[in-house]
C-alpha cells in the first residue's frame, strides 16, 4: 500500500511515526483522534507576504514537512493517475505544496489539470498512488478509516465544485449534516438548539438567513454556493478546501464570495486552499500557485 517506503527513505520514518500516534494525554474525548482534536492554530503573526517562496527548503521538504509548526498542511510528491481500460492517465506527477496556518492559498490551473483531484487527495477523499499528506507534521493520508472519517468531518471543510447539497433536506438541515455525522444521536439531540443557533448564525453571516427552510432546488447558484460554504464551516474546521467556489457565478457574486472567504479567514481563524481557473479571482488570495503538467509551479502574488 505504501509505495513511498521504497522510494524515499525519509518518508518511511514518517510513516513509522504515524504508526504510533500519541493518544491524547489530557482529558480529550476518547473518540477524537489527537490529530482531529488538535486545537485551532492561533498563531497568525506571520504576514504571509515575504517568504512564501522557499525553493531551497522545498528540496528538504520532500522528505519531511519543513518546520512542522509553520506548515499546517504539507503535500509531498503526490502522484495520482486514473486507469481506464488499461490506459493510464497520469494526472498528478509529484505535487509538493506547503500551506501555512491562516494562509489563503489559490491553486490555479487549466480545466482538467487535476486541481479537483489534488483537493480530493488533500481532503482525504481519495488515496494517492505515491506521496504523502501531512497535517501539522503528522502524516494523514494513511491513517485508519475511522480517523480519516473524523478528519474529513472535523478538520477539513469541503466546498465542492458542484455544491453537492442533499436535495431532500432544507438549507438549514443541509448545513447541519456534518454536525449530525460527527455526533451520536443523543449528543446531537441534547445540543440541537445550540447547533441550530450556530447554523443560523452562520447562514446570516453569509447572507442566507432568509432561506433556512428552502430546498436546494429552490436556491440560485450563488445561494447554493454560500450554503455549501456554510456547511463546510459548521464544524469549525481548521482548513477550508474550496473547489471553484466561484465557478458558476458572475464576476460580482464571485468577488463577493471571495470577500466572504477572506472575512471568514480572519474571523474564524481559517486556513483556506482554493482551487480556480480564474486568475482574477485567484488574485484576491494571499498566494497563488499554478498547477500544470501535474506539478506545482509557484507564482508570486
Amino acid at each position, binding site marked *: 500500500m505504501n509505495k513511498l517506503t521504497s522510494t524515499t527513505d525519509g518518508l518511511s520514518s514518517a510513516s513509522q511515526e504515524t504508526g504510533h500516534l500519541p493518544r491524547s494525554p489530557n482529558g480529550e474525548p476518547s473518540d477524537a483522534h489527537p490529530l482531529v482534536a488538535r486545537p485551532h492554530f492561533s498563531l497568525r503573526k506571520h504576514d504571509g507576504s515575504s517568504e512564501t517562496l522557499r525553493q531551497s527548503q522545498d528540496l528538504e521538504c520532500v522528505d519531511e514537512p519543513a518546520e512542522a509548526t509553520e506548515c499546517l498542511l504539507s503535500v509531498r510528491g503526490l502522484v495520482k493517475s486514473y486507469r481506464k481500460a488499461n490506459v493510464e492517465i497520469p494526472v498528478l506527477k509529484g505535487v509538493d505544496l506547503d500551506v501555512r496556518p491562516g494562509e489563503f492559498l489559490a491553486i490555479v490551473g487549466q480545466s482538467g489539470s487535476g486541481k479537483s483531484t489534488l483537493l480530493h487527495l488533500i481532503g482525504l477523499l481519495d488515496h494517492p498512488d505515491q506521496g504523502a499528506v501531512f497535517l501539522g507534521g503528522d502524516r494523514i493520508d494513511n491513517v485508519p478509516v475511522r480517523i480519516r472519517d473524523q478528519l474529513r468531518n472535523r478538520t477539513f471543510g469541503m466546498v465542492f465544485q458542484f455544491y453537492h447539497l442533499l436535495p431532500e433536506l432544507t438549507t438549514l438541515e443541509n448545513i447541519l449534516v*456534518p454536525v449530525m455525522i460527527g455526533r451520536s444521536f443523543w449528543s446531537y439531540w441534547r445540543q440541537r438548539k445550540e447547533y441550530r443557533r450556530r447554523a443560523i448564525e452562520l447562514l446570516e453571516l453569509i447572507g442566507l438567513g432568509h432561506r433556512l427552510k428552502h430546498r436546494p432546488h429552490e436556491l440560485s447558484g450563488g445561494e447554493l454556493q454560500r450554503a455549501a460554504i456554510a456547511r463546510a464551516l459548521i464544524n469549525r474546521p481548521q482548513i477550508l478546501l474550496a473547489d471553484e467556489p466561484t465557478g458558476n457565478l458572475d464576476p460580482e457574486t464571485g468577488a463577493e464570495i471571495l470577500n466572504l472567504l477572506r472575512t471568514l479567514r480572519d474571523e474564524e481563524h481559517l486556513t483556506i486552499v482554493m482551487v480556480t481557473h480564474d486568475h482574477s479571482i485567484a488574485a484576491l488570495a494571499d498566494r497563488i500557485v499554478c498547477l500544470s503538467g501535474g506539478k506545482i509551479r509557484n507564482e508570486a502574488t
Partner: protein
Amino acid sequence: MYRWLLCWRYLKTRYIALASIISVTLGVATMIVVNSVMLGFTHEMQNRLHGILSDLIFQSRSLEGFPDPDWHMEQIRRVAGDAIEAMTPTVVVPGMLNYQVGDAWMTRPVQIIGVDERTQAQVSDFSKYLQHPENRKNLSFNLREGGYDVIDHQADGPSLPRDEMALAGWEHRRRAARLRKMIEQVQQEPEQQSPSQGAEASPFTNPFERAQTNEPVAAFDPETSQYTGAILGIGLASFRRNGQDHFLLLPGDDVKLTLPTVGTPPRIVSDTFTVVDFYESKMSEYDANFVFVPIRVLQQLRGMIDPSTGKGYVNAISIKLKPGADMNEVRDRLRNAFAPQYYAIDTWRDSQGPLLAAVNMETAILNVLLFLIICVAGFGILAIFFMIVVEKTRDIGILKALGASAAGVMSIFLGYGLLLGVVGAGAGLTLGLLFVRHINEIADLLGRITGHRVFDPDIYYFYKIPTIVDPWTVGWIMAGAMLIAVLASVLPALRAARLHPVEALRYE
C-alpha cells in the same frame, strides 16, 4: 442522527417504496387472520372433542365388551389411582333409530351409548350439551314437564330462537297422545268427527304415536307414562336451514332403537324409547350419531347381563384425570398393566390424532405459503432499494466526503428497510387485527355480495367464526416480516457502503 433524518426523508419523498411494503402489509395481515382463525377452530374443536370424550378411554377391542366393570375400575385405580378423578362405564353399540314423521318412517344409523346417569357427567362435559337446564345440573332419563331451552344456551352471540322447543316435554306428549286418540275415534266413526277439528286441536300434527298402538304393552297410557328415556343427538332430530333449526321430533315423542345382541350370531332386538332431551356438542358427526340411553337398559336389551352374578358387561370405561396429571404417562402405565390384545387404552388426543394432525398440517402449510408472500415482498424491497441507492449515489458520496463512515451510510439503508418493515408490519398488524375482530361481519358482507355463504353455520354448528389471537404468533409474524425487510435492504446497503466517495461524487 443524519441517518434517521435521511431515512425519514427518503420514506416521505419516495412513495414508490411504500408500494413494496403493501405486500408486506397484506402478507402480515393474512398471516394474522389465518393463524387466528385456525387457532380458533383448533381450540374450539379440541375443546369440544375433549368435552365430548373423556381424558382417557379404556376400551374393549370387542363389541362384546368385558365383564364386571367394577373389578376393572378397581384395577385401574390400583395402577393409576393417584391421577384419577372419576370413571364411568359405558356400553357402545351401533344400531338403528326409527321414528315417524308424517306417514313416513325415518331410519338413521346411530351409535347407541349406554351411560351411567350418576357418573357420566363427572368424566366429560356431557351434561353441558343438554337442552334442559335441570338435566344440565342433574342428569335424568325422565321426561321433564317443559322448560327446554328455546335460546341455544351455548351460543355466544345472537342466534335464532328454536320456538318449537317451547312445546317440548310432557305437555307435548299429552297433546300428541290426545290427538292420536282422536284420530282413532275419527277412524272408527268418520261421520261424527271432522278432521279439521283435529288439526285445530294441535297445529303440530305428530301422529306417529299411532305406531305405539301396535305395541303389545297392556295398560300403557302414553298421556301419563313414558318409555325408557333416550337422549338424542340434536342432528338426528332436526335440520338447519338458513341458521334456523327445524325439529322433526321433540322431547316427549317416542322413537325405536334396533340393535344387535351379544352372542354369535347376534340377534336383532328392538325397543321403544321416549326422547327426553337433545345432545348438542356442536360437532356435527357426534350430534348426528349419538343416542344415549341408561346403561342398565342397554345391557339388558343386548343380553349383556350375566345371569349368575347379575353384573353387566361394558365396552369401555371413560376416565377423567386430576388436573395437572400427565395424560400420556397415565395411559402408558395402564397400557403396561392390561393385556393389549383385549384392551385399547387411548387418550382423547390419540383417538382424534389424525384430525388434529391434519389441522396442524394445514396451519403449517398455510403459514409457509403466506411467509413466501412476505419473502416476495422482500424482493420488491430489494429491487426498489437498489434503485434508490443508484439514484442516491451522489448523495452517498457527499455524506462520505463529509465524514460519514461506511457503517453509517449502510445503516441509512438498513434503517430505511427497518422503517419500511415496521410501517408495513404495523399496518399489517392493524389490518389483520381489525379483520379478525370483524371477521363475522366481513363474512356476512361477502356472503351478501356473492350470494354464497362464506361461513355456513349449517355445516359447522358454530354461529360465529371462532378466532383466537395468540400474541406470540403475532410477535413472530411481525419479527419475521421486519427481518425480511431488513435482510432485503442488506445488499443495497452494502453497495452504498462500498461506494468510493470521489467516484460517487462524479456520478451523474
